[in-house]
C-alpha cells in the first residue's frame, strides 16, 4: 500500500512540478520545500490531487509540512486518513 501511494504521488509530482526533470532524484525523504519542488500554489495542487485520488478530505490543520513535505510523509498521512496507518 505504502509503495503504491508513493509511486502514484511520485508520478504526479514528477509530471506536475518537475516536468520530467532528469537532474533531480526524488527519494522517499526528499523535502519538497527544501528542494523548492513546490511553491505556495503547488501545495494546494498536491492537496487537491490527494483528495481526488484517494477520496479523502484534508483540513487546514492537516495541511502542514509534517504531513505533506515528502513522499514518505504523504504515504504515511494518506494511509492514516484511510484508516490503514
Amino acid at each position, binding site marked *: 500500500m505504502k509503495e503504491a501511494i508513493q509511486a502514484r504521488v511520485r508520478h504526479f509530482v514528477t509530471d506536475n512540478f*518537475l*516536468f520530467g526533470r532528469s537532474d533531480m532524484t526524488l527519494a522517499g525523504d526528499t523535502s519538497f520545500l527544501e528542494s*523548492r519542488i513546490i*511553491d*505556495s*500554489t*503547488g*501545495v494546494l495542487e498536491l492537496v487537491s490531487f490527494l483528495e481526488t485520488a484517494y477520496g479523502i478530505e484534508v483540513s*487546514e490543520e492537516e495541511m*502542514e509540512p509534517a504531513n505533506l513535505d515528502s513522499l514518505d510523509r504523504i504515504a504515511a498521512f494518506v494511509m492514516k486518513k484511510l484508516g490503514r496507518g
Partner: protein
Amino acid sequence: MANEDGSLRLVHSGEIFNHVELRRDLEARGHRFATRSDSEVILHQYEEDGDACLDRLNGQWAFALWDSRRQRLLVARDRLGVRPLYFARSAGGVFFASEMKALFAHAPLSREMDAAGLKQVFTFWSTAAPRTMFRDVEELSPGHALVLEAGRAEVRRYWRLSYPSSFDGHAHERSEEEQAAELLALLNEAVRLRLRSDVPVACYLSGGLDSTLTAALAVRQAGHPLETFSIRFTESDFDEGIWQEEARAFLGTPHHAVWCRPEDIAGVFPEVIWHAETPILRTAPAPLFLLARQVRDAGFKVVITGEGSDEILGGYDIFKETKVRHFCARRGDSAMRTALFRRIYPYQPRLQRQSIAYLRAFFQARPEDLTGPFFSHLPRWSLAPSLTAFFSDDVKAASAASDPLADLEKSLPAEYAGWHYFCRAQFLETALLLPGYILSSQGDRMAMANGVEGRFPFLDRSVVDFAAGLHPSVKMRGLEEKHLLKVAAKGLVPEGIRRRSKQPYRAPEAVCFFDPAGGRPRFPYVEELLSEDGIRRGGVFSPKSVTLLVEKVRQGRAPGVRDAMALTGILSTQLWLHQFGKDFRAGGTAE
C-alpha cells in the same frame, strides 16, 4: 544638430524637461541659441561644463555628442534609464542605437543568444545591464556614459541612486505634514515641467493613486480637462474599471477605455516581443501596447503616467512582504505574525487558503537570510531554479558558469550593506527591475512602438532625490504603502482611491494563449512554437518538459504563478528566437 561653429554635433532622443531654466542660465552666460529646441541646450551645457553637463539635465534622454576639437564622442543615458541605449563593439567600430534591431541592420554583428542573459531574464524578469539577450550587444546602464576617445571605449558612471547611511536624528527633523507638503510641491513642479510640449498631452488613469494624482495635478495646471486613457479587462479579477470611473468622474476628463480580452493579449504578443527585444515572464506589457495604440489613434503623442511611484515611495507588495518577513524573523513561532502574510496578498485567493504552517515555510526568513544582500527578493528569485529547469541541456551547460545573484552582488554599491533593509529592497526594484522591465518592456518599448512618449513625474530627479532621503516609516506606515504620498494627495484625488490598498497591475497569463474551454491554442503561432518540434528546433528548452507543462496548462491544471511565468517565458523566448534568428528582417516583422 550642431553648435554655432560646427565643432559639436549631437544626436538626441528624448526630452530635457528643464531646458527653459538651463537656457536662461546659459544665455546669461553669453551663449546664443539658434533654435527653441531642448536638444540645443545639451550642446551649450556641454560647452559650459564638459561631461559634468550630465548632472544638470532633468529629463529622459539618450544622446551622442561628437566633440570634433577633442576628437571625442560622449554617449550618455538618463539617470534612471527611461530612454534606451545599446551599443556594440565590433571590428568596424563602436555602434550605438536606441534599439538593438537597428544595430543588426547596420553593424556586422552576430545575433547569437547570450545564455547568461536568458538566465537573468528567468531570474530577475529582465537582463541586468550591461548584459542583453545578445552576446554582441551591451546596454548602456542608466546613469552611465560611454566615452570614445583615442581608439578606446570606456564606460563611466556619472550618477547612482543612494540612500542615507543612517536615519539617526533624521526622522523627527520635520513633521509628516511638512514632508508631505514638500513632496507635493516637488510633484507639482515635476508635472509642470512635463506639460511642456509642442503637442497635446494626455494622461493614463489606472484607477490607482499614482496615476490619479499625476492626472489631477496635470489637469489643475493645464487649466482644462486633459483626455485620459485606461485599460479595462474582461477578466474581472484584473479589472479596475470601478476605480477608473471614480477618478474620471472626479477629474471630469474626457475618457477613453480600451477593453482587453485574453485573446487580444495573445494577438499582439508577437509584436510585443518584437518591440521589447527580449523574452518576458509576464504578459502585462501587452495591454499597455494596446493602450498606447489607442492613445495614438486618438491623436496623442505624449502621456503622463504614474510609473516610478511604487519604487521610490514604497508601494510594492514586495516591500510589505520584506517588512513582514523581517518582523516574523524575530518571532518565527508566532502564528499571529505569520498570518500577516495573508494581509499582503488579499487578491490572491490561493494564498488566503494556505495554512499557517505552509505560510511560515514559504515566507519565513532564516537568520542567515536577514544579513544577506538579497533578503527582500529571495522568495521571488527562488523561483528561478524551477524556471531554468526547462532549459535544454545545451543551454544549461552554456549558462552553468553564470550566477545572476553573484554577478548582481558584485555590482552593488559599497554603501549598500549599510542601508536600511527597506532601502535595500527599494534599490533593487529601482536599479534593476525599473529600467530592465517596467520602463522598457512594459513602458517605453510598448509606447514608442506606437509613437507615444510616456512622461513620469515620479521619476523627476528632484522627486527621486527627495524620496530617497525619506525614512522608511513615512513611506510605509505599518503595512500601509505609500503613506506619505497618501497624506500629500489628500483632497486632490477621490477619497476612496486615496485610501484603497494598492492592487498591482497584472494581466491574465495562460488563458490568453489557450482557450480554457477545451484547451485549444488560440493562435497558430502558439501551437507551432510550443509543439515538441518547435521546441526542438529552437534548441533552448527541453521538449519533454515543455510538453508536460503545455499539457498541464491545456487541461487547466496550472493555476499558479510559477507555471504561468514558465509558459509566458518559454513562449516569448520562442518568439524572440524566431524573430531575431535566421528569419530576422530589420525592417520589422512581428510574425
